[in-house]
């Protein structure tokens, strides 16, 4: 038995396996947003269809999900039923808000007519709100707690599991 080979080999192997094992739970694609832990930027945008203005301030005291999307975004088609199902499931306990940017109202109305709607959809005409939230692409979803603090962010289309896991942080 060559003890130096055994000890050095085992040390290198154990260190490597330990590092890789710890890394197994991480998803490096999900980069933490600097917005997390900060108050959500205020906005007051017109609702598609009704034309009424919705102010984020008015949603205080209710956990809120802000979903940025667009009709030209294919993953948003995939995500839409998940949002509708969960909005119906949580009812008044959680406020869902859709923010559409870089899009036109006619396309949005057609999309909602064909695929259904269960929560207000706002039009971010010049994309200012998306910029304020640091949106890099659509879909992107922010989870706000009762105090209006952003507690989680998810990039890409959500599944129900992902949505509810993030929502838990907002309801806590």
């Amino acid at each position, binding site marked *: 038995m060559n003890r130096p080979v055994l000890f050095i*080999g085992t040390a290198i192997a154990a260190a490597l396996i330990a*590092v890789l094992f*710890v*890394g197994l739970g*991480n998803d*490096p694609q999900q980069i933490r947003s600097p917005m997390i832990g900060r108050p959500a930027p205020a906005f007051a945008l017109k609702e598609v269809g009704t034309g009424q203005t919705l102010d984020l301030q008015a949603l205080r005291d209710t956990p809120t999900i802000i979903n940025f999307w667009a009709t030209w975004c*294919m*993953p948003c088609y995939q995500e839409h039923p998940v949002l509708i199902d969960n909005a119906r499931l949580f009812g008044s306990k959680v406020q869902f808000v859709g923010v559409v940017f870089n899009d036109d109202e006619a396309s949005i109305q057609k999309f909602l007519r064909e695929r259904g709607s269960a929560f207000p959809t706002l039009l971010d005409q010049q994309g200012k709100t998306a910029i304020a939230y640091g949106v890099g692409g659509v879909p992107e979803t922010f989870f706000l707690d009762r105090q209006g603090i952003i507690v989680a962010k998810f990039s890409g289309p959500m599944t129900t599991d992902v949505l509810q896991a993030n929502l838990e942080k907002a309801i806590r």
Partner: protein
Amino acid sequence: MPFAIGTWLACAAFFSFLIAGPANPFLTIANPPPDGPGPNPLLQNHLLMIIHPPMLYLGYVGMTIPFGFACAALLRGRLGHSFLRPLRASLLLPWIFLTVAIMLGGWWAYEVLGWGGYWAWDPVENASLLPWLTATAALHSAIVLERRGVLKGWTVTLVQATFLLTILGTFMTRSGVFNSVHSFTQSSIGPTILAFLAAALLFSVVLLALRIDSLESDGRIESAASREGMFLVNNLLFLILTFTVLIGTVFPLVAEAINGKQMSVGRPYFDAMVVPIGTALLFLIGVGPALPWGRGTREEILRATLPPLATGVVVAAIGYAVGVRNGWTIVTLLFGGYAAHVTLKEMWLPVARSGTSALRRGRRRFGSYVVHAGAVVVLIAIAVSSTTRTSREVRFSRGDSASIGAYTVTFLGAEDRAEPHRQSTIARFAVTKNGRAVTTLAPRMNQYATMREPIGTPDVHSTLAGDLYLSILNVDVAQQRVALHLIVTPMVMWIWIAALVMGLGGLLALIPVRRTSVILTQSAAKGKDLEMADSFGMTS
């Protein structure tokens, strides 16, 4: 042989289990969409994507065979010539695949990703490089083993490390733990591959600890200033390079585990660490073959090592004269010229002595010097292309022109094109060089139905002297405006050509030489031309 077959079957059993269970490709999904998303758009738009993955796969999977031989040598407690030949040949073949695959991957990244580079130290790129480094070291130490009967334990350790690094590379690609351009898919097989890696590591370490002392050396290294001494330094440098790349690759995981912060180790670390080691290896490509085996006299050593220095100085001076100012690049040209002189001399000498029949008899040796020649050109081309490129970003309206280097680029207009799977906006540019029309380039922006962001596809005008590379930053068809990234990079094409030459050299060294030729070679080797048999192929 039973030990080797047992090792291969154990590996085959694991991967059969993987494909039958955790990674079963025939499982149906719960709610299949009417039309699936298709492959990642980046994988859809270049011919090289058809060749690069299978080549890399052959390189990776092929490393199982020498691993089996190495384990068998340890279990038997013997590593003689009968075992060394198949070990070396089975290592050389996947090494050729890996060499060509790494080059093809770089070429694809260059042609598709739009940033004008070919190597980004991406974790999965590094995963392909790591086993290549240890396999290259093993091929060299096998030569010393053959000639001097030393480094037996060291050679099998390198072969084992090569196999283990291919499994680590598989984990890096498929686990989703590393942030990489290769994160094309998500799967849950990470823990299973990690378990196999842990088991293979444990098996290898215990086997080495138990049996390495049974592989006794038949000789010893007499002098550091000898060819075998240089082989040893070469091996140490390859090992340091392997650890450098490995540490840089896994460090983000270590940092996140310790302080919870996400970070990435980028080009500055890798460049600072790898450039000096790579330059030293280039020096050894020159000095190693120039030195005699065993203990040479001072005069012999000086006579062999000094004349090529003049070629090195000339090449470095030419580089300086044409505008190279980066210190490391000048040193690379100096060592590259030196190594080229030694390599060409070693290729030419047998032909000068005994005509072209020497090429047939000494194919192994000749092939290995072809590999060296390719490696010298690759290293010079990498140094020159990465330190002398020029780039600029320009906004064009239709009819506008801009110059970069000797090229002038004129924007002819942009148009939309609809295809079933994507919408493309194509911008056309007329290219002139020193006033003469040379080509029209058409970089494009593609919006795939399944992607969140549009993807650019650059267009490249390649010549042996250098490339003109156009990549769209932003395009507006209605206004006929485009923002364009223009890059001129010298010598890029030499990287692809020289890497292919390396693969070709490996093939030459691999093709068996007829026995009658071997006998002739061996009788020659007993005389003056001792180095005839040295190289890293097989002779049976």
